[in-house]
C-alpha cells in the first residue's frame, strides 16, 4: 500500500476531507515525470489522451524481450511456453481487474477503438435490419460513434442519440424514451473524455435490460481511474485501452459475456483463430482465440498485466478521490481568471477539466501552455457532435492522473493567466 494518512492538506489545496495520497512516492515510480521541457519541470496534464508508464511496466516489456521472447501457442520449446504463460497470465490479470466471470470473456485487441469495431462488425452487423436502432449518446468519442454509424449505413439501421443537459449530464428520461422494440444495442461511454461526466452506467444497463437490449460500455476513460466491476454493472460488453491505463500502446481489451460472444462469427481470419482448416471447411476456435487472429501484441499484454498489478498495489479509491480533488481545485483556480469558462458541470465528474477562453482559441492556449512546460490537449477531442452541442469549435482540456499534484494545478492556472496577459 502506498497510501499514507497525512495530516493537513498540501499548500494551496482546498480543505481535503479524504485521506491524502502519497503522491511524492507515486511520482518516483514514473521516470518520465522527472523530465523538463523548455527549461521547466514537465507538468503532464494530458492523461486522458495517454497516461505515463510506471517503471514496472517499462521493465516488464523490456524483460519480456530480453528473456522470454517467442511466439505463443503451439510452440513446444521452453521460450514459447514462457511467452504463452505470460500472455495467458495477462488475460487472467485483466479478468481480475474487471471482475469478469471467466478469462475466455477477455479478448485482446489493439485498443478500445478496435474493441468497439469488433462488436460493431461481429455482433451488430449480422443482427441489424433496416429501421433497427442503436442508441448512443451526445457525449460519445468518435470511436463509440463512427463504428455504429458505419454499421447503420451498411444495414439501413438508425442511430438514436441520448441528449444531455447544459451541465453535461445525460438525460435519462430521454434515454428511456429512446429505448423501443427496435433498439438492438445501447453503446455508451462510462466517462466522457471531453467533459469528464461519469455516466450512471449501472442504471443505463438496467433500463436497457428491462427491454432485453444489450449494452456496450466504452470504458477508455473509466478503467484507468476507477474500479470497474463488469458483473456489478451487468454490461454485456466493456472496452478499454492499455495505454490510457498506464500500460503500453497497441494493446486493449474487449470484455464480452460468453453467452453473447460465443455465437458471434469471427471478424478477422488467420492463424490462431481456427480449430481446423481443410480446403473445404474451416472450423473456428472457441473464445477467446476466435477473435485473436494472427500473432497478438504479446509484449503489450505483458506490459498491461504489469500496469494492472501496479494499480492493484495502490489504494484506487484514494487515487480516484485525489484525481477528482485536483480537477475540482483546477476548475476553481481557472474560474478565477476573467474570460475563462469551464465546460461541463456534472455532479459526478472524473479528473477532467475542459475550458475555453473568450480571448484565445484553445490551440493558442495549448501553445502558450506548452512553452510554460504544461502539456494539455486542445481541439475537438474526437467529439465533434458534442462540440456542436456545446456551440464551440474546440476546448482546452487538462486531464489529471493520480501522480499529479496541487502545485501542478497551480502551474496550469498560472500559465492560463499568461495566456490572458498575452491575448487580453
Amino acid at each position, binding site marked *: 500500500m502506498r497510501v499514507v494518512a497525512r495530516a493537513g492538506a498540501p499548500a494551496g489545496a482546498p480543505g481535503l476531507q479524504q485521506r491524502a495520497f502519497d503522491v511524492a512516492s507515486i511520482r518516483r515510480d514514473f521516470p518520465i515525470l522527472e523530465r523538463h521541457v523548455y527549461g521547466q519541470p514537465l507538468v503532464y496534464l494530458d492523461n486522458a489522451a495517454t497516461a505515463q508508464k510506471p517503471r514496472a511496466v517499462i521493465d516488464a516489456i523490456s524483460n519480456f524481450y530480453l528473456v522470454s521472447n517467442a511466439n505463443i501457442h503451439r510452440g513446444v520449446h521452453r521460450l514459447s511456453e514462457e511467452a504463452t504463460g505470460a500472455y495467458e497470465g495477462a488475460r487472467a490479470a485483466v479478468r481480475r481487474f474487471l471482475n469478469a466471470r471467466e478469462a475466455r470473456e477477455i479478448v485482446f485487441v489493439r485498443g478500445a477503438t478496435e474493441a468497439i469495431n469488433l462488436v460493431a462488425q461481429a455482433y451488430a452487423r449480422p443482427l441489424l435490419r433496416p429501421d433497427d436502432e442503436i442508441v448512443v449518446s451526445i457525449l460519445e468519442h468518435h470511436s463509440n460513434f463512427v463504428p455504429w454509424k458505419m454499421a447503420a449505413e451498411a444495414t439501413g439501421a438508425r442511430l438514436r442519440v441520448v441528449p444531455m443537459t447544459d451541465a453535461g449530464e445525460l438525460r435519462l428520461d430521454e434515454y428511456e424514451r429512446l429505448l423501443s422494440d427496435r433498439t438492438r444495442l445501447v453503446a455508451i461511454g462510462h466517462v466522457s473524455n471531453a467533459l469528464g461526466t461519469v455516466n450512471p452506467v449501472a442504471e443505463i444497463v438496467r433500463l436497457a435490460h428491462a427491454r432485453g437490449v444489450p449494452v456496450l460500455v466504452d470504458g477508455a476513460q473509466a478503467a484507468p481511474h476507477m474500479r470497474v466491476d463488469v458483473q456489478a454493472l451487468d454490461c454485456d460488453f466493456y472496452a478499454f485501452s492499455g495505454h490510457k491505463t498506464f500500460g503500453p500502446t497497441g494493446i486493449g481489451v474487449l470484455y464480452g459475456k460468453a453467452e453473447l460472444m460465443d455465437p458471434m462469427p469471427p471478424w478477422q481470419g488467420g492463424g490462431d483463430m481456427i480449430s481446423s482448416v481443410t480446403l473445404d471447411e474451416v472450423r473456428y476456435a472457441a473464445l477467446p482465440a476466435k477473435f485473436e487472429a494472427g500473432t497478438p501484441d504479446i509484449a503489450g499484454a505483458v506490459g498491461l498485466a504489469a500496469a494492472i498489478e501496479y494499480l492493484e498495489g495502490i489504494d484506487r479509491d484514494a487515487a480516484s478521490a485525489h484525481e477528482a480533488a485536483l480537477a475540482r481545485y483546477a476548475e476553481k483556480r481557472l474560474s478565477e481568471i476573467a474570460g475563462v469558462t469551464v465546460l461541463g458541470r456534472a455532479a459526478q465528474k472524473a479528473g477532467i477539466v475542459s475550458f475555453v477562453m473568450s480571448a484565445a482559441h484553445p*490551440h*493558442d492556449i495549448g501553445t502558450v501552455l506548452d512553452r510554460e512546460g504544461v502539456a494539455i490537449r486542445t481541439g475537438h477531442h474526437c467529439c465533434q457532435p458534442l462540440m456542436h452541442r456545446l456551440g464551440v*469549435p474546440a476546448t482546452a482540456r487538462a486531464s489529471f492522473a493520480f501522480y499529479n499534484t496541487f502545485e501542478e494545478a497551480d502551474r496550469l492556472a498560472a500559465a492560463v493567466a499568461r495566456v490572458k496577459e498575452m491575448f487580453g
Partner: protein
Amino acid sequence: MSDLRELYQEVILDHHRRPRHFGPLPGANHHAEGLNPLCGDHLTVHVDVEDGVIKDVSFEGAGCAISRASASLMTDAVKGKRVEEAEEMLEEFRQMITSGADGPVEAGLGKLGVLCGVREYPSRVKCASLAWHTLHAALESETETVTVTTE
C-alpha cells in the same frame, strides 16, 4: 516567453482581434471551404475575380489566432493582385513556413513575413497554411463551393 512573442507578434494579435475582410462577399464568383480535421478549424474564402485580377476577397469562419491572422493578412496581400501573382505568393509562403528555422523569408512576402515564427512550431504550420490552401481551391473552382482539408 521571448520565442512565444516571435510567434504571437503584435501584428498577428492585431489581425486576430480585428480581422480584415472578414465576412461574406456579395458578388464573389469563387468560393471554397477549408477544414483542418486535426483541430476542427473551419473557414470559407470568397473571391471576386475579374479579368484574371482578384478584385475583392474575404473570409469567414472560426479558428485560432494563427489561422485567423494568416487569413486576414492573406486577404490584404492578394487583393488587387493577378491570380498568378497570388499563386506565386502562396508558393513563397508555403516555403517560408515549412523551411527550417533559418530558412529565407522572401522580401516579396512583405507583411506576411511576420508568420515565419510558425516554422518553429510544427503542430501549428497547418493553422497558417489553411487560408492559403482554401484560397487556392477557390481560385481553381468555378462557381461551386469546393472543400479542401489540410490532411
